């Protein structure tokens, strides 16, 4: 091994970054070449250069920032509400068998209903504006956090509970110092899933009924056969979702840093 290493010309960092980039660059090059050779119709899939042009145009006209901002706001509001309610309800129900039994059937029946199926009702109840979108996002983003919090509480390490019993630690302190910190990793996992669902919900809701937002932008472009704009919208959602997920990941690392070296024992 060491002999081989000696003769490497590229530094490991450069090598790693290029490994990340090989696939996307290859896709773009092949896509571009196939389009120029006339093998793909521009209406079906316009070449990357055309998509880039549309992106630049939408960016400089302020259209894209306006729509993506609206969607980000909707996601943040619906997701934030879902996170808050999901964590609070999850902890309450996770800690109390009575609350659990009281709510279980209703929750189990509501849970399998896809948020998209709520869109007609949401429009009837809340109209076509912000509130109906936020409601849909809330419904979709609520369950992953909620379910994960309960799972986390049920998985509280019994060995710690024994230590607390021996030391006669009062219940509220047990909840604060043992149960809640133990649930934190589950909350973060739930939040990251929820955020993904929130993006699905906002786009779906905007595709069906909206006059603003990336979902609307995509749907509008489809009707005008502007496939390049459709692609710009899709890629923008992908990138924004990824950025928001990375932010959550960083928060997770800060909050549950103790976990890094703990998994072994």
């Amino acid at each position, binding site marked *: 091994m060491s002999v081989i290493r000696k003769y490497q010309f590229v530094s490991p960092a450069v090598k790693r970054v290029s490994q990340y980039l090989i696939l996307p660059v290859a896709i773009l090059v092949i896509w571009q070449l196939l389009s120029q050779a006339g093998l793909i119709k521009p209406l079906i899939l316009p070449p990357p250069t055309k998509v880039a042009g549309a992106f630049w145009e939408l960016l400089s006209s302020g259209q894209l920032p306006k729509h993506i901002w609206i969607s980000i706001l909707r996601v943040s509001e619906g997701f934030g509400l879902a996170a808050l309610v999901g964590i609070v309800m999850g902890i309450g129900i996770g800690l109390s068998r009575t609350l659990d039994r009281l709510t279980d059937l209703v929750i189990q029946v509501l849970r399998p209903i896809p948020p998209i199926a709520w869109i007609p009702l949401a429009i009837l109840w809340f109209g076509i504006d912000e509130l109906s979108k936020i409601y849909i996002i809330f419904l979709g983003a609520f369950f992953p956090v909620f379910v994960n919090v309960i799972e986390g509480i049920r998985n509280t390490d019994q*060995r*710690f509970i*024994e*230590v*607390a*019993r*021996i*030391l*006669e*630690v009062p219940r509220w*302190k047990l909840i604060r*110092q*043992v149960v809640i*910190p133990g649930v*934190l990793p589950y909350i973060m996992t739930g939040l990251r899933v929820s955020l993904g669902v929130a993006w699905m919900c906002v786009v779906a809701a905007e595709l069906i009924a909206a006059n603003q937002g990336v979902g609307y932008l995509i749907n509008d472009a489809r009707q005008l056969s502007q496939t390049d704009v459709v692609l710009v919208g899709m890629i923008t959602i992908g990138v924004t979702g990824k950025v928001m997920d990375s932010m959550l990941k960083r928060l997770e690392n800060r909050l*549950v840093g*103790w*976990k*890094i*070296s*703990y998994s072994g*024992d």
Partner: protein
Amino acid sequence: MQSPAGSTLVIQNLNKKFKTRENEIIALQDINLNIHQGEFISIVGRSGCGKSTLLRVIAGLENDYEGLVVLGNKQISRPGLDRGMVFQEHRLLPWLKIKDNVAFGLADNLGGEKIRIVQEHINLVGLTGFEKAYPHQLSGGMAQRVAIARALVNRPQVLLLDEPFGALDALTRIQMQQEILRIWEAEKTTMILVTHDIDEAVYLGDRVVVMSSRPGTVKKIVPVALARPRDRSSYDFIQIRKAIYSEFFADAEKPFAYAI
């Protein structure tokens, strides 16, 4: 309930069964043991002979038993601050700093007193300067010291130690044995230590309780009438070690290091 003179912990005709779906396991059968205030008791026995179960009964974690287990004239039925416990795994809360782990069992209404007690116990186990560290930053031996400090903050009358050094390397283990003796002498706590290391049992105990398995019973109680600090290579020490060893291996040749 009257305990025999000088005894603080009295165990009489203790039986403990575990009922599983298929069968019933007799974990402890007819255990009789009187432990004096301030005594250091070692318990040795093969894995599965009921050592942990015995400690858990004394700790109050297992209350479904038959017989008498009396501490200071009170039958044990649940955990209490008069008993502390240290497990083989340190069981420190990974998200709390060392000082907060040590403070875990302290009541919150102690005010400034609390800080003093925590610091005192961190000093006692020789970890001054590590107050703000997290458990994952400590070695196994250090983590176990924190667990000992945590168990001692409420000044329990009895400290139960369930193979506390079993997972440590040989050199750290010897160091920890000396530490626990120092703490015992400073705190005058009654110590009940479970181990599968005969050398450790003899080095630490005033008496060594030898248990046999299936069902778990007390086979023999060996007094260790040796002055402290003890010399592990002295003739008397080795004789006692041999006697305990032969309780487990009737006539096989005796290896150099005695561990079960």
